[in-house]
């Protein structure tokens, strides 16, 4: 009883805060000074048409680095928790996979991969970028798992891809300190023509590394959750 009362009191208190916030909310018609700077100077300074990309990769590059680190920590903690202690032999009879989904997965996995690569290489021109591309690459592994529930994702390859792309990401940032204005500055490579694929300095390179890293980390989390299905509880 008293618990319910407390819950309702907390929710109502938060709702009251929201109502006051709501009454003071005015329609914003102009950008903040920071956003105005990004909008007016961003194209000349960074050379990327997608302003969100230029903020994520260059202006707030440290945020991206921190986020990739958090994701790496999550992947390692999940694999530590779901470590397989005793391998149980699979005795129960699973229903065999339909032939249609087997063929469809063979047909679709390369296409999904190409779509993921498109999303993170064109991150500075169209909506998308490393995080979306990484999520799409992990989804290709979901498709493989759906076609064959006993499919094993090779942990060696995943960890090699993950560490190589992570180290390269940091190295490109350090090159930014040596050759250009600061950490993760994209002007280590020439800016190129506005609106082409190979332009905007190092942004396609950085986003490719971020995409590979995010994709391999998410696949690692997935394969841990899949691996525990066999184990006896």
């Amino acid at each position, binding site marked *: 009883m008293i618990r319910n009362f407390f819950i309702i009191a907390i929710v109502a208190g938060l709702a009251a805060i929201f109502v006051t916030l709501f009454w003071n909310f005015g329609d914003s018609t102009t950008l903040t000074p920071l956003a105005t700077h990004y909008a007016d100077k961003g194209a000349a300074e960074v050379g990327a048409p997608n302003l969100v990309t230029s903020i994520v990769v260059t202006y707030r590059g440290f945020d991206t680095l921190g986020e990739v680190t958090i994701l790496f920590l999550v992947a390692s903690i999940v694999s530590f928790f779901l470590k397989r202690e005793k391998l149980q032999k699979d005795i129960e009879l*699973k*229903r065999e*996979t339909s032939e249609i*989904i087997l063929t469809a997965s063979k047909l*679709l996995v390369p*296409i*999904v991969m190409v*779509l993921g690569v498109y*999303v993170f290489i064109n991150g500075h021109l*169209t*909506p*998308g970028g490393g995080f*979306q591309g990484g999520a*799409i690459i992990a*989804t290709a592994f*979901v*498709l493989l798992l*759906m076609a064959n*529930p006993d499919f094993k994702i090779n942990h060696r390859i995943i960890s090699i891809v993950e560490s190589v792309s992570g180290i390269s990401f940091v190295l490109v940032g350090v090159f930014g300190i040596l050759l250009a204005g600061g950490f993760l500055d994209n002007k280590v490579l020439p800016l190129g023509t506005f609106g082409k694929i190979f332009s905007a300095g190092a942004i396609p390179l950085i986003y490719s590394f971020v995409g590979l890293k995010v994709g391999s980390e998410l696949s690692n989390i997935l394969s841990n959750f899949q691996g525990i*299905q066999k184990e006896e509880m």
Partner: protein
Amino acid sequence: MANIILQIAGGIMLLSIVLSTFRFFKAGSLVDRVVAFDVMTVASISLIALISHFAGRTIYIDVAIIYGLLSFLGVIIIARYLEKSL
């Protein structure tokens, strides 16, 4: 003229999403809800295409491509869960 016709089409698409929501709540089994979810996904792909017309940005079609290629996975996952072979 073309704009008015497209607005009517958008209204009809919203109506179909709302109708499939009804089926979601008045479902006999889990499979019924999944079918309603599937229809909602497919209808929202065309809604995304219409929104890209109203906003005047053809670049939004990329989002529709991601949806069209990935949204069927949700249904397949639930189907594998139902036949106990995940």
